[in-house]
């Protein structure tokens, strides 16, 4: 397939999602860097031919919508968020864009059975360095509050990555400089999962990175 046949346009959220404005994380610089990274990697992702896609912390639903447009109906799209309004926004956004997405209101992947299941995993986490007490809510503050090093929520997902990824699974993660990306890379390296930088960008006062992680044994 020629990459010019893919739809890479930035999805609109639509009127219903916009009514919930201020209750979920609006698409921001970090969101757009992830979209650009997925577009940049579209050839790799297509070649992996994912069957099961999962976005953790789907927020507005824009990234999952983008993926569903890019990969079409050969794949099933799961999306989770701890914030009920983000789940609703994702429902409205995906419906508005005529994409079928399976939404679950949960903490990361709690109470799911996705062991070695996930072919494509995407997470734009709450990455801002904050005090511990700000972490753990289910409202809009969960969009950014990342605790120590802005890594508290991310770390909980990282420890599950070896269990979640299918043999050829690929994981895209957004990090900022304060999250110590090198430490994350080394941590996953310990599970034989290698990380590579896909894109980086300076936006306002943030230095954003998107990494791709894959099992070393994965050949594609």
């Amino acid at each position: 397939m020629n990459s010019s046949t893919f739809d890479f346009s930035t999805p609109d959220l639509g009127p219903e999602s916009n009514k919930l404005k201020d209750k979920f994380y609006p698409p921001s610089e970090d969101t757009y860097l992830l979209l650009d990274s997925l577009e940049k990697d579209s050839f790799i992702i297509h070649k992996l031919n994912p069957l099961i896609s999962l976005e953790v912390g789907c927020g507005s639903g824009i990234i999952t919508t983008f993926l569903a447009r890019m990969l079409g109906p050969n794949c099933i799209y799961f999306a989770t968020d701890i914030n009920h309004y983000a789940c609703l926004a994702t429902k409205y956004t995906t419906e508005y864009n005529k994409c079928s997405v399976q939404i679950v209101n949960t903490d990361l992947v709690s109470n799911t059975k996705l062991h070695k299941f996930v072919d494509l995993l995407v997470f734009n986490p709450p990455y801002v360095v904050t005090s511990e007490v700000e972490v753990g809510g289910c409202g809009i503050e969960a969009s950014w509050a990342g605790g120590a090093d802005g890594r508290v929520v991310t770390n909980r997902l990282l420890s599950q990555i070896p269990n979640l990824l299918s043999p050829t699974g690929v994981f895209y993660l957004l990090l900022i400089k304060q999250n110590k990306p090198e430490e994350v890379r080394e941590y996953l390296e310990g599970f034989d999962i290698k990380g590579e930088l896909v894109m980086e960008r300076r936006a306002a006062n943030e230095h954003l990175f998107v990494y791709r992680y894959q099992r070393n044994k994965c050949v594609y």
Partner: protein
Amino acid sequence: MKLITHNILQNNMKDGKKGYPLVLQATKIDKVIAEFNQEFLLRMLDRLEYHVLIHALEMIGMKDFLPIILPENCSEDEAFMKNLHHALLEIDIIEGELICPESGRKFPIKDGIPNMLLTDEEEMAVDSEPKSK
């Protein structure tokens, strides 16, 4: 919530019990139209707990919809593939409850979205347990 999602939801319990499959009680069901894709369905069959799908259909009163045992050569069975597609992707549970078969714990489904979070009370009960970490 589509039945494909029911297939991957579980009450992850600490005591090693399965918490799977969850009992499904539906009070509002919609039918939607999804694009049929044979290749997707065939690949999905490999990862699906077929008997759990059958169980889910039974629990919402659509028992005779699919054969209890997965037919051989199902890829050539057009009627079966169409029904499988419908069962997985076109039955939408809008309101209802998922119930853990072992603990009886309930997870509400509202606006078509299952809520698998602990309630505040449950959270407190968990916090007062000794942490295994």
